[in-house]
């Protein structure tokens, strides 16, 4: 019990750093260079095949707002990383 509380406290202490990182990224100007978009698609596909393929066959692409929910669900369920979540969402909404 004590170990869990100490562990959660130490992880929660990372929240400020994580939130600051998220805010900084969210406020960044979304300038998409063709090379960046291509790179993201390629990486997104790689992350998709490596992560999602561990459990199930590739689904069809759904509208972006649905994919955003599905990928958030999988972030929690399959404990995929935040970076994988973003790249997979980008790939699945192209």
């Amino acid at each position, binding site marked *: *019990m004590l170990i*869990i509380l100490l*562990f*959660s406290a130490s*992880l*929660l202490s*990372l*929240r400020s750093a*994580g*939130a600051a*990182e*998220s805010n900084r*990224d*969210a406020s*960044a100007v*979304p*300038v998409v*260079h063709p090379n*960046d*978009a291509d790179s*993201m698609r390629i*990486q997104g596909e*790689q*992350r998709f095949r*490596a*992560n999602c*393929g*561990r*459990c*199930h*066959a590739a*689904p*069809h692409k*759904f*509208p*972006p*707002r*649905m*994919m*955003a*929910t*599905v990928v*958030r*669900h999988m*972030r*929690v*369920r*399959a*404990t*995929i*990383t*935040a*970076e*994988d979540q*973003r*790249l997979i*969402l*980008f790939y699945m*909404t*192209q």
Partner: protein
Amino acid sequence: MPSVLAVAQSDPARPVPILSGSLGNFSFVTGGHNLLDSQVNPVLLVPLGDRWLIESRAEFEGQFQRPANGGPYGGPVNKHVDYAQIDYIANPYLTVTVGRFLTPFGIFNERLYPVWIRALEPDPLILPINTAPSDGAMFRGGFRANRAANMNYAFYLSTTSIGSGSVDSERHVGGRLGFFFPGPRLEVGGSWQRTLQDDRRNAFGFHMGWQPAKIPLNLRSEFARSFEGSGYWMEGSYRLSQSHLWQKQMRRTEVVARAQQFYVGSIGANQEASFGLPDVNMREADFGVNYFFRDGLKGIASYGRQFSAQGNFNQWSFGLAYRFLIPLGRVGSPREAQ
């Protein structure tokens, strides 16, 4: 790369609530006795803001058999909530979950259980070991440990757990730690659980998964040991997409094989059934074929042979599994995300 992530994080697609889930209709023939199994497993996903997610899954399962003296099929319809939880994504390393959640012991219960995902419809023999839903709090997350590996973890505290008889309760703590190596697509990990009452028993398990990049092969395995029993399963599934013969049909076809073994635990044979476990030591081998008609719809067929001191039995299964996904709000076109 930073600009790439910045673009991805500023994706304008706002998540919409979804009703998802699966439907399944199966026929299981064990030792000559036919069991018709129809089930609906709705999953509700409600995202709130940027960091919250409410999710729940219920199960409605009817298992119908013909009475020994003849007559129409009949049987119970079981209804229960598998999980109803609130998730808060605190930061890239931590997600906090409260409510009823699937116990993260091994990988089958959390990730492979839905009928549209699992490669073989019959449950692994060891599935009931430490996988009853937990009620409490859980801390989990996944992050990059180094250039070669991602680490994932889950620690939880459960105050009440409803057993297979729906009358049992207990307090326990547990956790799961895993490493995923994206290069070789190899995943390994272990699980642990300790009850906080009575004899304060420990249980542990190991899991692995491997999907080689060059061939459409998926290998998975789990081992579990607890007071209730112990055992393992090993499963391989191979998509016939590399076949040159009847390519259109073959790329939709998957062949599966599973070997498993179960050993009765310290609770004794008389108590095993109350946990949904076999009451004798058992071995089983299964072979199956899945055909994916289209995204979310597959037909299944499998044959298995069970070996135990109670006798050896054939197990056949046939059926259809379907996954649905319904938005509960306005959704944009794919171009909105660009």
